[in-house]
């Protein structure tokens, strides 16, 4: 029996290499500066707008779960929910989070409560901030009513989105909310591009979660990720040149 499954050897070596790069980044590249992410800066602006207008800030993390391929997006969304909770608590904005995945509920309630406590506004925390709806259809039906009734000032749609994206984004725009969207699901990006004011695209969402954490290790991991990206780009360029010269060597090596 071989030590590693055939066809997965290079994948395993590359995964270990990426792992090492990220660990290196987390340990040694902690003083790097992450570039400005306009969508992330717009979150602060939208909360300020909500405070001035006396209207609520709405956040929806989409239909992503913690149990499948959407988990990293959901984790990033939960981290940003916590950040927005802290900002709302600090500046006195009303905050509403609507979700439709039950097992994310305890983590979301906890991170919001933690951030209210952290900013000394525990008395303003209410269990009514998080509202659970059982599926995507009921989520957007409830949200449409909520947007109209509360006239939300800010609509933050960050997470793994499915077909509900276009309805939430278009309806949020119709009530005049400043809209910030972010997802790593490519099929929903066009809907957000068409309807929202600011967009956090794919990888930026994970970087935003690291940036708001203010944790040097997390910021270092973004630098480590850039090392991985450089390796991937180098392999692609070498493979491209090899293919132009009529050699399939790189493609064959990657299949080992």
């Amino acid at each position, binding site marked *: 029996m071989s*030590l590693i*499954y055939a066809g*997965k050897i290079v994948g395993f070596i590359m*995964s270990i290499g*990426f*792992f090492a790069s*990220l*660990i290196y980044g*987390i340990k040694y590249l902690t003083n790097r500066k992450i570039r400005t992410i306009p969508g992330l800066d717009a979150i602060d602006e939208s909360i300020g707008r909500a405070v001035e207008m006396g209207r609520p800030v709405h956040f929806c993390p989409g239909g992503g*779960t913690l*149990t499948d391929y959407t*988990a990293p*997006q*959901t*984790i*990033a969304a*939960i*981290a940003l929910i*916590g950040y927005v909770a802290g900002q709302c608590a600090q500046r006195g904005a009303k905050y509403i989070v609507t979700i439709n995945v*039950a097992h994310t*509920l*305890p*983590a979301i*309630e*906890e*991170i919001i*409560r*933690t951030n209210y406590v952290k900013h000394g506004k525990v008395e303003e925390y209410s269990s*009514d901030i998080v*509202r*659970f*709806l*059982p599926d995507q*259809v009921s989520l*957007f*039906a409830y949200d449409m*009513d909520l947007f109209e009734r509360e006239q939300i000032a800010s609509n933050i749609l960050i997470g793994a989105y499915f077909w509900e994206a*276009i*309805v939430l*984004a*278009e309806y949020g725009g119709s009530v005049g909310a400043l809209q910030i969207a972010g997802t*790593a699901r*490519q099929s929903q990006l066009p*809907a957000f*591009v*068409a309807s929202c004011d600011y967009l956090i695209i*794919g990888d930026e*969402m*994970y*970087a935003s*979660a*690291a940036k708001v954490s203010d*944790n040097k*290790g*997390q910021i270092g*991991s*973004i630098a480590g*990720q850039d090392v*991985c990206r450089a390796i*991937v780009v180098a392999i692609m360029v070498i493979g491209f040149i090899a293919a132009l010269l009529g050699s399939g060597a790189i493609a064959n090596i990657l299949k080992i």
Partner: protein
Amino acid sequence: MSNFMRTQFPIAIFIICQFYIFFEFFIPIPGGPALTALLGKWVVGVSNFALLLGALNLIRFHGKNIVQQTKNEWYHGAIILASMAAMFLSGWFFKPVYTWLYANIYTGLNTALMCYVGFYFYSAMYKTFKVRNFESFITLFACITMLIANAPISGTVWGLADIGVWIANVPGSGAWRGFLMSAALGMFAVAIRAAMGLERAYTGGSD
């Protein structure tokens, strides 16, 4: 609940499961696939148990609105709780009634609401398809070419289907693959941050 049970214990479980599944994907471990499948079943079980928390959130929020007669909300709450009770009781005691409610009310309402998706796609397209600058012109050109390439007329007009297919296969695929690779690296980084206990959002983020 102690800090250990709230944060360190879930992180320990996460790290053990994450590394086990990672290595099991690459390295042949006797009985490994069976254990991975069992872990998957546990995940489904725990997720379903969490539905109870969702139901409690619904009852608490809407129950409070009904009791406090919250303006413009209490009657929504009453409808939601009555519907929940009707579906729960009929599902438990009167299966034919449950099937009838599901097929004739739930499915109909669901389908009607899903129609919003199509409607809003058209309104979003209308806003997007305005040529304000060169980039929006390229977007408009690519979208119209793709629309025509997928319409029955494309076969009769020379070149249109080919242009649409080329846009989808060459610049479109290239851009999406670059996006996917970048997003995949981001996912990998989140997993490593979580494995090292740096990313704690999934535990509620408490220290």
